[in-house]
């Protein structure tokens, strides 16, 4: 027992060292930037109503937690549920669009158009349609996250090796078998790159929806602190948005690792 525990620990520190070897340049860069901003704001070159002092932001981070935890939970719930719903819908529609050309011909232009609508303008309309509250926010996240996943997966499905499909057909495979054994495994990387993009959008989409009246969370918090001139707290909420988006992004990578074991060892980046 003891030895397996220490072996596990050893493995963990080894893994940590491996991670550190990759991320230290980024960590160093961020640290330098923060120190630079601290110096610029301390010396008054940048006034605090333009950019707050990083040390004040750090303090706000701690001080604001009692309020922050509620708004984070609210925004996270909307972003997560919207993200997953968008993912499920996107997989379904990409499969249909791949299977039936007419579905693709009908919906593809429309899907592209939804992406060209400026989100800031369209969210108030969504709230007008669905009313105040969480559903409008949920729907906004779906609208934003649906596109990258659908397009990415669709192109993944279409890029599957045509020879392989022909081979399957000659061997008498039915469409369903081709889908299961060839298309889905081959297009999984494309699906996950779409999901990664959607994950980074989802929190921001929820925040935008809140500005238009779609429930209360980080977006409302940000607006209120900004207007009360509490920029340290406002920046703390911005950092939270970054952290949460990265967390979601990492979760997608984690799921990718678990669900596509055959790609372990292949380059994923």
């Amino acid at each position, binding site marked *: 027992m003891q030895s397996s525990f220490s072996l596990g620990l050893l493995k963990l520190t080894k893994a940590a060292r491996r991670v550190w070897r990759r991320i230290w340049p980024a960590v160093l860069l961020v640290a330098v930037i923060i120190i630079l901003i601290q110096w610029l704001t301390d010396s008054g070159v940048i*006034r605090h*109503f*333009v950019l707050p002092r990083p040390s004040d932001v750090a303090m706000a981070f701690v001080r604001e937690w009692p*309020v922050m935890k509620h708004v984070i939970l609210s925004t996270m*719930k*909307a972003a*997560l*549920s919207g993200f*997953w*719903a968008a*993912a*499920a819908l996107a*997989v379904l529609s990409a499969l249909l669009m791949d299977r039936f050309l007419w579905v693709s011909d009908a919906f593809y232009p429309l899907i592209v158009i939804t992406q060209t609508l400026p989100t800031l303008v369209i*969210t*108030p*309309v969504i*709230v*007008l349609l669905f*009313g*105040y*509250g*969480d*559903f409008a926010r*949920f729907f906004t996240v779906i609208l934003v996250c649906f596109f990258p996943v659908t397009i990415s997966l669709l192109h993944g499905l279409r890029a599957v090796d045509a020879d392989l499909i022909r081979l399957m057909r000659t061997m008498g495979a039915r469409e369903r078998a081709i889908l*299961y*054994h060839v298309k*889905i*495994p081959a297009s*999984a990387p494309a699906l996950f790159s779409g999901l990664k993009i959607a994950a980074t959008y989802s929190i921001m989409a929820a925040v935008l929806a809140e*500005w*238009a*009246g779609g429930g*209360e969370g980080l977006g*409302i*918090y940000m*607006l*209120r*602190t*900004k*207007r*009360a*001139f*509490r920029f340290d*707290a406002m920046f703390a909420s911005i950092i939270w948005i970054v952290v949460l988006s990265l967390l979601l992004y990492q979760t997608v990578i984690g*799921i990718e690792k*678990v*669900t*596509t*074991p*055959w790609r372990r060892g292949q380059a994923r980046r």
Partner: protein
Amino acid sequence: MKTQPLRRFALMVLVLLCLISSACRRADEHGGMDRVRFALDWTPNTNHSGLYLARERGFYQDESIDIEFVESDMNFIEMVASDAAAFGMAAQEQVLQARASMANIPVVAIAAVIQHNTSGFASPVDRGIKSPRDFEGKTYSGWGTELELSILKTLMEQTGADFDAVKIINQSAGNFIASMETEADFAWIYYGWDGMICEQEDYPIHFIPINAIEVLDFYSPVIITNEKTIRERPDLVRRFLKATAQGYTDAIMHPEDAVVSLMREAPELDPVLLLQSQRYLNERYIDNAPYWGAMDPRVWARFSTWMQEHELFDHPIDVEDAYDLSFLPKDG
């Protein structure tokens, strides 16, 4: 072996669907009470303090009203017009503009929150802007509306200044002080909020109130409702205004309590700023009017005419449809 990941994937999709369906659950109905939404025009602030205090003190409950405040700057007038919220807040110019728009948005003002306009053009003292004449050659940090330019023009013409000599930009800085420090010389602010912030930040400004010109002393903000609510539930409007008037009257008497009730709803705000702002507004809610909420038809008529003259309407309107004075509790 190859289908293993697929099965896992299918399971995941199933879990997601469960998550989605739980997210879509709807709220319950309320028994016995009128459930009413109030659409705020901005982040909760001292313009709203009477509403929050009225709720906290149970004045709405006494009138069998269960009130919920919802906030968004982007679509509050449309939300009230479409009855997604029965009541809301807006400025007089927004009510008029909504009614005179191509969309004929049917909102109606039912009470004035503050008797006189508290907005104006502010500039840091070092820019030396003491009268509208000094706007010449300076940079104005605007919101991109026709209305503010017309107001600016009216103020400047009064003193014989040349409006075309003002450089106009759209504000890109996120707040008044940052805008003054980085891009412009003056901007349109509400003294009760941005003015208070400047006092708090020790940022000396010169302030030219627009109410110096009678026609520009319009109501901002007013409480609004929609034509449907007035037609179908006039009793609700009356009860709502009774409780609201009580709330504002109490807020005037107990500014600290008003701030506490605001902070309870919006803990992100700054209590010191709120109290300062509340004290500033205290004598201005009712001012020289006989009771809270009173509106003078002449204010509506002359400002509407001014807006029409400055081509701010898509089509002419009957200004008397834009407000309704019959619901106010006149005994104070």
